[in-house]
């Protein structure tokens, strides 16, 4: 990994570990996300209508896709605005670090723990369901397509979430506003995922791969767009992009 990206990643993880709000959220939210779906699925009684079982399992599965979408927004709200608020942004921008390196390091620092937590929760949920739930629920949860979907979508959804959050973070003026806007921006994506988890669109392995490919393309495009939006001048002053007309527009 590029030295500067690695430096940003390492620093961000160190800071998160010492931020009580971030640590508290990273512990509390996953516990809630794990307990509620397990309780819902385990309380399905034998002989329950198949449609009702699908609805409960669908809602539970949706919860696990929310983890990689929501957790990064909690962290990344601090990514740029937090730096500006504590006066660390100007020294950072004074170094040779490139916009895309800084953003990639920050994105990885939010994505890596989010993916780890999402996988761990889904695994714990699946094991619990297999051990205790009724066979109809086990069959739905242990469909191979759902595991492939989680394996592929958790990192891609996390990345999508982080780029949207960073886009908002570089333009917003307050950490909480950035976090709330980021949460709102996730709603359309949650709607799309719900189509699969509720089996409105058949969750096959093929569909999972196609969906993942599309999301990967969107993620790469979003990285480039957010890097372009990252304007040192705008972040340090309230103005930006005011160089002479003959200045090259491509930036380092």
């Amino acid at each position, binding site marked *: 990994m590029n030295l500067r990206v690695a430096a940003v990643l390492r620093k961000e993880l160190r800071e998160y570990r010492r931020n009580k709000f971030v640590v508290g959220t990273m512990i509390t939210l996953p516990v809630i996300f794990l307990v509620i779906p397990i309780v819902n699925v385990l309380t399905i009684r034998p002989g329950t209508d198949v449609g009702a079982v699908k609805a409960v399992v669908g809602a539970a599965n949706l919860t696990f896709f929310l983890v990689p979408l929501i957790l990064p927004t909690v962290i990344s709200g601090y990514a740029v605005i937090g730096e500006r608020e*504590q006066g660390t942004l100007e020294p950072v921008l004074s170094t040779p*670090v490139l916009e895309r390196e800084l953003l990639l390091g920050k994105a990885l620092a939010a994505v890596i723990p989010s993916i780890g937590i999402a996988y761990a929760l889904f695994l714990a949920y699946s094991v619990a369901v297999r051990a205790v739930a009724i066979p109809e629920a086990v069959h739905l949860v242990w469909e191979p397509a759902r595991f492939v979907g989680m394996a592929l979508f958790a990192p891609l959804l996390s990345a999508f979430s982080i780029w949207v959050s960073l886009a908002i973070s570089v333009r917003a003026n307050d950490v909480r506003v950035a976090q709330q806007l980021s949460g709102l921006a996730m709603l359309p994506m949650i709607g799309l995922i719900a189509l699969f988890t509720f089996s409105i669109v058949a969750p096959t392995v093929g569909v999972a791969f196609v969906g993942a490919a599309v999301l990967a393309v969107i993620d790469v495009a979003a990285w480039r767009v957010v890097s372009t939006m990252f304007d040192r001048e705008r972040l340090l002053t309230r103005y930006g992009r005011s160089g002479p007309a003959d200045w090259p527009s*491509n930036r380092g």
Partner: protein
Amino acid sequence: MNAPAIRADGLTKRFGSRTALQDLTFQVGAGEVFGFLGPNGAGKTTTVRVLGTLVHPTSGSAEVAGVPVSRTTGPELRRRIAIMPEAPGLYLRLTVFDNLEYFAGLHGITRAAASGRIMAALETVGMAARANDMAGSLSKGLRQRAALARTLLSDPQVLFLDEPTSGLDPVATREVRELIEGLRSRGVTVFLTTHRLEEAERLCDRIAIMNRTLRIQGSPDELRRQLFSSAIEVATRGPIDDPNAVLGAVPGVTGWSGVGDGRYTVNVTDPVAVAPVLARAVVGSGADLLRLAEVRHSLEDVYLQLVQEDVEAEE
């Protein structure tokens, strides 16, 4: 002046309809400590940001450490400089060492190489023993020193210090000044913005005073000569009987005024040449000469004179 480490030519920066800088032209020689003075809102920080490629000039050109200031050359230029903003900008939840390790990484220094550099930088600012302290636990003076250590990591050719002693107590101020003097001896070019005139006078080889436009630049002595006519202060025991005949007759004297009982200010063309002749004339007139000295204007006099001119111009 040595070969320029900083060159600005007609540098102008506007934020919307507000002009922050107007037509700045100056050069700073390699190894110089260059003081940049001006009232609040004069554009000092904006100048540092423009030269550091953090904001882009509306017009004009500049070159720093041999690299033209432009959008495309930003990373290359920033490899050769370091900027210490007015606020230390440390991550308060990290240790001093972790803070510096992060910035070493941003400069592309490997972790293996960074460790030695960090300890050397902390030694320079007298903070090696505090490497493992949390930045949030440090006093303001220590944070400032840690921030200065951070700027040394990349071994910069040009160092921009924006109000480095702002808000520090006298002891911490003296320590930071000693560090700046140490940098001069290492051949680092230092661009120092400050409000503290005595600091600029003590530390800087040359000084520029600005208030959106560059009002004056030169060594402290040159600034005094540019703004104030040369004068000699004469003190005698009792008034001279006919001061006009005694003082006004000396070649090189352009005028005089009495400022009290036996005290005179004599305007001269060249104090060094005129002073001996003037002394002989006063003694020859029968007066008891108590003191004869060149009138020294402080940098504060120069600064206040310029700022007053700006205020009057605005009125």
